[in-house]
């Protein structure tokens, strides 16, 4: 019997299991102990592990990043949460100037096992300051590991791996993925960093979808079947390090690539992937999709044009592979359920 959990349930289970097995794991962040419990992902943990291990913090992102780093130096394994990734911009100093560099700049004398979870917002007028997805900024920085799990399975496994990792790990969780459900084993398990997943095999084009865009790519894949196009969908899962081998192998097969970023594109993950393939002399038709290069507008009529989605992806694939044909936009509506992950991997 498959055991189905939602994405936040998977996170909660990971936290619970790691906190149970390792007394040095603590949770900190605005709202981790409040009634909303970070969309349920920290529900009940304060009650179970007490207020010293699970605590709310003042609104002080830079300072609290420092506190997490200090606690890590003292032997704890802090998991820090930002309810929106936009707030990570306030903590860049500690993350980039200290956490990412400590092990190196102190010649290996110390290490910094912190995990920073941050949620990406989307839709319903989150607007310019509550929608940002700044993983490209973090990917530029050596010394950080960055994961953006798409499935409930990976959410649990990546988080457990992150907590056990001895280095700073950024975990990016898209709010819309919180509705995802999928197979999640009850036992503790880890998903090692640096390996992507082929979510669906295909012949004609490689779609790399980051975070929630992996779901949009899967939906696009279904639309494309209507047009007789077979898309291979890859979820990189881990952004730093990136599994460029997996992507390269797929593109060698399909000859076509669209990277669908869940962020702005300039100097983004798509640029990195495409540049890496080019350096490796892999010839292909390549294209990037991602956020429009403007702040995210609040009004729904503009916001809808701001994000890529399954139909836009499918349509883009179609015009890329069938340049001679008229533009095509899928018309049927998918049953959203269809594209949920049930696993198991």
């Amino acid at each position: 019997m498959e055991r189905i959990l939602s994405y936040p349930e998977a996170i909660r289970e990971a936290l619970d299991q790691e906190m149970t097995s390792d007394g040095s794991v603590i949770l900190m962040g605005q709202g981790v102990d409040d009634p909303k419990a970070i969309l349920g992902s920290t529900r009940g943990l304060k009650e179970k592990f007490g207020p010293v291990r699970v605590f709310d913090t003042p609104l002080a992102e830079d300072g609290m990043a420092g506190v997490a780093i200090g606690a890590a130096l003292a032997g704890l394994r802090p998991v820090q949460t930002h309810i929106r990734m936009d707030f990570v911009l306030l903590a860049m100093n500690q993350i980039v100037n200290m956490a990412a560099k400590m092990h190196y700049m102190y010649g290996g004398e110390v290490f910094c096992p912190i995990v920073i979870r941050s949620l990406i917002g989307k839709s319903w007028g989150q607007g310019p300051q509550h929608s940002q997805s700044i993983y490209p900024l973090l990917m530029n920085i050596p010394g950080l590991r960055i994961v953006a799990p798409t499935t409930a399975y990976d959410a649990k496994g990546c988080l457990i791996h992150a907590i056990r990792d001895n280095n700073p790990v950024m975990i990016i969780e898209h709010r819309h993925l919180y509705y995802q459900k999928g197979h999640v084993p009850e036992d503790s398990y880890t998903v090692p960093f640096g390996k992507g997943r082929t979510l669906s095999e295909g012949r004609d084009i490689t779609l790399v979808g980051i975070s929630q865009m992996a779901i949009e790519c899967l939906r696009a894949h279904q639309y494309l079947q209507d047009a007789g196009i077979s898309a291979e969908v890859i979820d990189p899962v881990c952004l730093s390090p990136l599994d460029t081998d997996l992507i390269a192998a797929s593109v060698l097969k399909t000859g076509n690539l669209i990277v669908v970023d869940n962020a702005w594109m300039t100097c983004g993950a798509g640029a990195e992937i495409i540049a890496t393939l080019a350096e490796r002399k892999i010839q292909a038709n390549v294209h990037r999709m991602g956020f429009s290069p403007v702040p995210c507008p609040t009004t729904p009529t503009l916001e809808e044009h701001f994000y890529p989605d399954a139909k836009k992806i499918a349509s883009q694939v179609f015009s890329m592979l069938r340049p001679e044909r008229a533009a095509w936009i899928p018309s049927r509506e998918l049953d959203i359920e269809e594209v949920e992950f049930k696993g198991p991997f």
Partner: protein
Amino acid sequence: MSMENPELIERFYKSLYRIRRTEEEIARIYPTDRIKSPVHLSIGQEAVSIGVCEALRPDDVVFGTYRGHAMYLAKGGDLKKMIAELYGKVTGCARGKGGSMHMIDIEHGVMGTSAIVGTTIPISAGYAYGLKYRGEDSVVVSFFGDGAVDEGAFHEALNFAALKKLPVLFVCENNFYAIHSHHMDRRHSDNLCERAEKYGMPSERIEGGDIFRIYESTRKHCERIRRGEGPAFLEIVTCRWREHVGPNDDFHLGYRKKEEVECWIENDELKRLREMLNLNGQDPMEAEIEDEIRAAFDFAESSLFPGKSELHEHLFKE
């Protein structure tokens, strides 16, 4: 008190009534999903914005937070454009691009609200630097919540404002909570005013929500500020009646006691002023405001959404 003259009571009452009713209408309409954006209502806190803004001059400016409807309206922001903004219409004060959390009406001195806690505090100080630079005697009022005090930006801004004797009034709207987190779970002592004083500015805490006292204190501090004597700090204790974000109340969540809020509801300034005015039934001025609010929603409903080309407009100013 001397300032509780009938003219003032009526002015305050009108503004209170207008803001309360506007937000009640927002709450009422919200479940229809015509406002597709998070709303942070000021219901219960209006007296802070009104008491402060009524003491300002038209050329004074305010900066605030995502919980900014009351401030926007109290400072004279255009009601129609505000509702249209919530609806995401191109006729909104930010053409629909900002929504409830990013309101602006520069014509009336509403210089902008922000969804990132604390960000407008140093910006207020910078604006005040500009005013002083140009030798103007206008004042900047920087509104923020008790949560913003936690941020380094608060410290940096107060320090700079005091150092440069800038014409800015810092107003901390202390509703005791940052989302669900009580302010005494975020600091050791309940002494914001003393802290502010140590940066080098007079400060004052106003409890009880008396709109006249807020008004009078603001007037007094602004006079001093206009004389070039530097910033001041007001902590105004208040209460948010509804949930942090959204149109409902939130007693079911259990993070605060119903009684905490109830005593504020009982002592509602709106009710008190209405009694002071001896109004019975719907007063003509209330009816007028109701008409204005209805017209604002009608305006929003009938306005157009921005066209697709707007997506790429306003990224850069020519």
